[in-house]
């Protein structure tokens, strides 16, 4: 019955390239948005991620006084690693690298890894501003994590399975976004939040001179920036699998549909982010726990009741 099957492990080599390309497309779009706001040409915006990569490859890495270099470097490389591990369970069309039975929990465990990684980036530099960035991220993470978990649970309840391919298959008739819009929205916001992006980028905010990014330069900085885009991309791709029917769509092959939907969602994240003021963790916490959590729980309850009634 299931149309999704694990592919030859050799494809592991291709997954980072695909992830990198989609993430690069996201970065280019961000460049275009910025260029448009500054009245520059679209081409210059599109080229900006390439320029940034070239610049950072040429830049020297910095160290600070009495930094915990080991933990710092682990943190800097960590975001990319987490994003790559996430790709393992994301189906592209009918292919997936590892269709493990608890794919959804796997994704969740990895986005908890982001807590540790971001905090390590902030801590390692031994600088007040980057540490403040690390603390901010944890404060934000405590706010978004529980709503995120229930948002992940909702499609799982409907699909009777933690396996991502089962969740995609369960959407044959109706995409989950239609009857669990709250879970979808909360999931999307959490994706933006754990990528510390847009309105949830307080950990790297301008008010603390870039926060976790304050002291990093060169390759380290490149890895962190790339990691943020990669996390945003994997989050979008996972949302496509969980809520938007995976590769389902007319005419085009299913893998192309997955990529198209992912790009579309990624573009939405990026464009909308520029239009919203930043949400500080001290403001977010109360809203997330007092309003967000009950709403998601009601959504889960609704889905559970529907599933139970339908049998």
């Amino acid at each position, binding site marked *: 019955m299931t149309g999704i099957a694990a592919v030859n492990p050799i494809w592991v080599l291709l997954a980072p390239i695909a992830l990198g390309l989609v993430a690069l497309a996201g970065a280019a779009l961000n460049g275009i948005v910025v260029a448009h706001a500054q*009245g520059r040409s679209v081409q210059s915006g599109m080229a*900006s991620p390439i320029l940034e990569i070239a610049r950072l490859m040429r830049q020297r890495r910095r160290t600070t006084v009495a930094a915990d270099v080991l933990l710092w470097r682990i943190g800097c490389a960590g975001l990319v690693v987490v994003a790559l591990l996430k790709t393992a369970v994301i189906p592209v069309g009918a292919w997936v690298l590892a269709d493990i039975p608890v794919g959804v929990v796997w994704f969740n465990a990895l986005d908890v890894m982001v807590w540790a990684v971001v905090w390590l980036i902030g801590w390692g530099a031994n600088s007040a501003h980057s540490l403040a960035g690390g*603390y901010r991220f944890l404060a934000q993470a405590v706010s978004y994590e529980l709503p995120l978990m229930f948002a992940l649970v909702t499609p799982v309840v409907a699909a009777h399975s933690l396996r991502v391919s089962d969740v995609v298959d369960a959407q044959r008739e109706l995409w989950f976004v239609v009857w669990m819009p709250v879970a979808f929205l909360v999931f999307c916001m959490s994706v933006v939040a754990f990528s510390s992006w847009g309105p949830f980028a*307080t950990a790297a905010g*301008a*008010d603390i001179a870039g926060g976790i990014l304050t*002291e990093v330069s060169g390759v380290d900085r490149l890895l962190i920036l790339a990691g943020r885009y990669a996390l945003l991309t994997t989050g979008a791709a996972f949302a496509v699998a969980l809520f938007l029917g995976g590769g389902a769509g007319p005419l085009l092959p299913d893998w192309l549909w997955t990529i198209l939907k992912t790009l579309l969602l990624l573009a939405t994240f990026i464009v909308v982010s520029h239009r919203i003021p930043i949400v500080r963790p*001290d403001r977010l916490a109360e809203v997330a726990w007092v309003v967000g959590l009950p709403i998601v729980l009601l959504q889960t309850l609704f889905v559970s009741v529907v599933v139970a009634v339908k049998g």
Partner: protein
Amino acid sequence: MARRAVQGSHVLVVEVPGWSETRMRVEAELARSGWVAALSPADADILLVCGAPGQELAAVCEGVWAQLPGPRARATVLTEGGVVSTLEQLATELLDEARQRRDARTRSRQPGEEGSAMQHIQSSAHEAHGTAHEEGHSRGHQPAEPDADADADADADMDMDMDMPMPGGIALASGGSDRDGLEMDVLNVPLGPVLPHWPAGLVVRCVLQGDVIVSAGAEVLPAARQANDGGGMGSSSIRRSTHEQGRRAVVRHSDAAVQVLALAGWSSAAGRAGRIRDNAVSGAALVDLAAALEQLGRRIKRSRLLRWTLKGIVVAPGFDAPHDGGSRADAVSVRDRLIEWLDEAVRIARGAPDAYESPEFAAAQHSNLAALPGLITGTDIASARLIVAGLAIDTAKIAYAPEPLS
């Protein structure tokens, strides 16, 4: 590859009090050419000082320069006309491989040594020092501690002594009670003078617990001399034409709006305000700007999210304190100030007079600076930054105008 790398260089702009329009010119030029304003020294390839810094500020710039990772280049611009040519020259300097190699060789590998000058100056935001702490060990040894006796036995077992090596020669932080009654480390962190969206030359020396400001003291590091581009006009300067005054007022108000919007993280609105400001700087007709300003003001007034995120962040506490302890009725919030600026800018753009030259304006800057520590004490850094931006202290007035008679 190297040529590509230079096309999107990041520039750390340091504004000296009085050279605000030069800084705006630089920012406009960066936006036009696709370069980026750096948020921190680690982020920057180029250090660009706008204006002639005084002794302290120059020392800070040296400290910041030592923190640029390299390849790096630096320059000082004093006139608006020199901006474009200076940036071009800096780009070629970055591309000069031989020169960059020489620079890299002469720098020491040890991060502490090259920045030694700034360790005393407490330069930018990037004082890497002061996170150190040793409270847990030393407390038992303090005679003032009530449970010192109970601790005595335990200390005998502890195989540690008081003069342990301090990593990097950093002194340890001491403890202090925080606002929730927990004893926490205190860190001495100077905010400014090199911070994005921060008044020129302002230094706020904060005592922090976590990211909460326990106490603060503010001062302004002056320029070496008076700017002649108009920012720091003393009472002696010639009176300018009304139109020029109006233009400067629009620039000032819209720049203040840019800083608040950028700190509130609303990049599209900040970009909009920035373009209006840049148009005003380059001498666009004020009447045309009025419409754009009005539109921006409407957008800001409409935004619920901005109202929510700026709620309760107050730049003037108000005096009518209700007894139930809620927020005071006549308190002025950062959002009020933001809307006020935009309305004022629209009025001035349509021909209303500006109060910039008046002694009251200068006096207000002094009283704002004096009020600043009180306002930010007890807030977290994010709110404190918004409050500082909401006060929009014109440091050029403070660095030059004589202290007002009170």
